[in-house]
């Protein structure tokens, strides 16, 4: 039989989000108070279930318990504020006392989860606060877990969460699904937040860890939730496809010793076929819904990599064309750099190098290590070892993650030991050309 702590943990992971989503609404949008009563309900379960047995419907028990505590708390707050008789006070108590739900029926729960998703990702909150709130409430992570994921202290994260909750309350950010005329714009905001969350997990900017699987998994979980809650929004399917296709390569992307493995050197047998198939299906669904956005193009590029059984089967012409269109939708130096990489693969390093040189001459991306890294790789492939070494050294001066630094150092040693040796063709840059990493230095968010 499953142990009590294990049942509670499973229930917490699965049901904290939907329960807190419901209680926030009952408590008039007060995130902090709602979280407290839901946590109290879980604490009560830990005490009562060993004595009284595990209820048949743990989730309904938790919601009912949290609801009772919510009503008590609202009554107490109203009493403390000595506003028992005001209309507003009565309305608050009435709202809190409304039936939490028809307990046999969780079918209305998605409405509250959608409210929670849109409120966590409200543009009036800072990007970091949005991500933290979503992980804390929708995903049911503890403040300590969220703090660890973002490499900050629990105190810093707790403060960030408190500030966000205060802003929601004080500026009166409504706990609603946006009106139809704002839905698409606000959905883009949600997607952008999920994309940043995934990117943060996919490639840590600093530190020794290249993959923080947890954040990617949470982003995927929220992506699936958004997809189920917003079935007609095409870009939601595109983003889910993009995340699935990248995530499916995670095991092949890092070597046993923690080094970075480029797309063309990855053991494709390690790719997660199930996630890849799901990703391709989501891309088809997105296209059927008429998706033609930034995420659609990025997902289509990832799909072309997924469909290539061997690196040499990759349709680089098509990928270069997709980057060309992406450049029109979301202009930016990082897209240009990726396009140059694809052009080099499709039509040879000279053509790619010409594009990289143009980009360098434009003076953008001067602090971005991938530009000299891409240049170095193209020079290396053209047999211009001495120039390649100069570019590798420039890239090394800018790179910030350890695995990527190790990769560049290895390449530098290679060109120094055999400066004019012919080398096998690889995609320039150190990440895959369709890397979902947010551009650094930051540019305008993709829309």
């Amino acid at each position: 039989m499953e142990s009590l702590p294990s049942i509670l943990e499973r229930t917490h992971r699965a049901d904290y989000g939907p329960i807190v989503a419901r209680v926030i609404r009952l408590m008039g949008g007060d995130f902090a108070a709602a979280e407290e009563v839901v946590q109290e309900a879980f604490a009560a379960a830990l005490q009562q279930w060993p004595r009284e047995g595990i209820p048949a419907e743990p989730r309904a028990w938790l919601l009912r318990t949290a609801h009772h505590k919510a009503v008590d708390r609202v009554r107490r707050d109203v009493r403390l504020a000595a506003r028992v008789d005001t209309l507003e006070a009565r309305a608050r108590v009435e709202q809190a006392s409304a039936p939490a739900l028809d307990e046999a029926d969780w079918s209305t729960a998605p409405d509250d989860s959608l409210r929670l998703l849109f409120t966590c990702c409200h543009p009036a909150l800072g990007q970091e606060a949005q991500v933290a709130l979503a992980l804390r409430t929708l995903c049911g992570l503890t403040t300590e877990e969220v703090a660890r994921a973002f490499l900050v202290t629990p105190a810093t994260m707790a403060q960030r969460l408190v500030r966000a909750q205060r802003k929601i309350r004080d500026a009166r950010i409504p706990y609603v699904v946006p009106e139809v005329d704002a839905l698409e714009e606000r959905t883009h905001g949600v997607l952008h937040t999920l994309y940043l969350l995934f990117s943060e997990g996919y490639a840590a900017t600093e530190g020794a860890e290249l993959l923080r699987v947890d954040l990617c998994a949470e982003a995927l979980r929220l992506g699936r939730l958004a997809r189920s809650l917003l079935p007609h929004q095409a870009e939601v399917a595109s983003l889910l496809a993009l995340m699935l296709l990248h995530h499916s390569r995670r095991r092949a992307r890092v070597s046993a010793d923690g080094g970075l493995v480029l797309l063309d050197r990855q053991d494709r047998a390690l790719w997660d076929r199930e996630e890849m198939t799901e990703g391709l299906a989501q891309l088809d669904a997105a296209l059927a819904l008429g998706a033609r956005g930034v995420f659609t193009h990025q997902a289509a590029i990832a799909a072309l990599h997924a469909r290539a059984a061997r690196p040499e089967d990759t349709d680089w012409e098509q990928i270069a064309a997709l980057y060309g269109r992406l450049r029109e939708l979301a202009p930016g130096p990082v897209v240009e750099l990726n396009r140059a990489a694809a052009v080099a693969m499709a039509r040879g390093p000279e053509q790619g190098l010409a594009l990289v040189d143009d980009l360098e001459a434009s003076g953008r991306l001067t602090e971005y290590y991938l530009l000299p890294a891409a240049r170095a790789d193209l020079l290396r492939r053209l047999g211009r070892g001495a120039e390649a070494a100069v570019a590798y050294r420039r890239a090394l001066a800018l790179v910030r993650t350890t695995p990527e630094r190790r990769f560049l150092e290895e390449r530098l040693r290679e060109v120094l030991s055999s400066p004019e040796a012919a080398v096998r063709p690889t995609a320039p840059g150190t990440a895959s050309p369709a890397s979902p990493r947010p551009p650094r230095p930051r540019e305008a968010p993709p829309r």
Partner: protein
Amino acid sequence: MKYLLAIYENEKQWESLPQAESKQIIDEYRAFTDAIQKSGNYIAGEALQPTTAATSVRIRDGKRLTTDGPFAETREQLGGFYLVEAKDLDEAIAMAARMPSARWGTIEVRPILDLAQPVG
């Protein structure tokens, strides 16, 4: 809930604007004011004279310091405001987005502190 919609824009732009264009913007503002008066959101609103007319006052060590100019020299200056009633931040943001200056300047949306409510 009450919100202040503070209008920040480059006041120099107004000086260089042809009269026909500034008239058009003022007409647009009149129409906006009429609309939010009709919808019941309007409480107050004024345009401000340029920051060349501004004086800043502070007391330090018990001494009054009066200086010429606005609080801070920035690229955009406070040029006017509306005080509006809105049911929540989304409604206030939607109003801010309808203001002409949002197209070239910035509208800061600030909830008004209700001193009758307990602070916390």
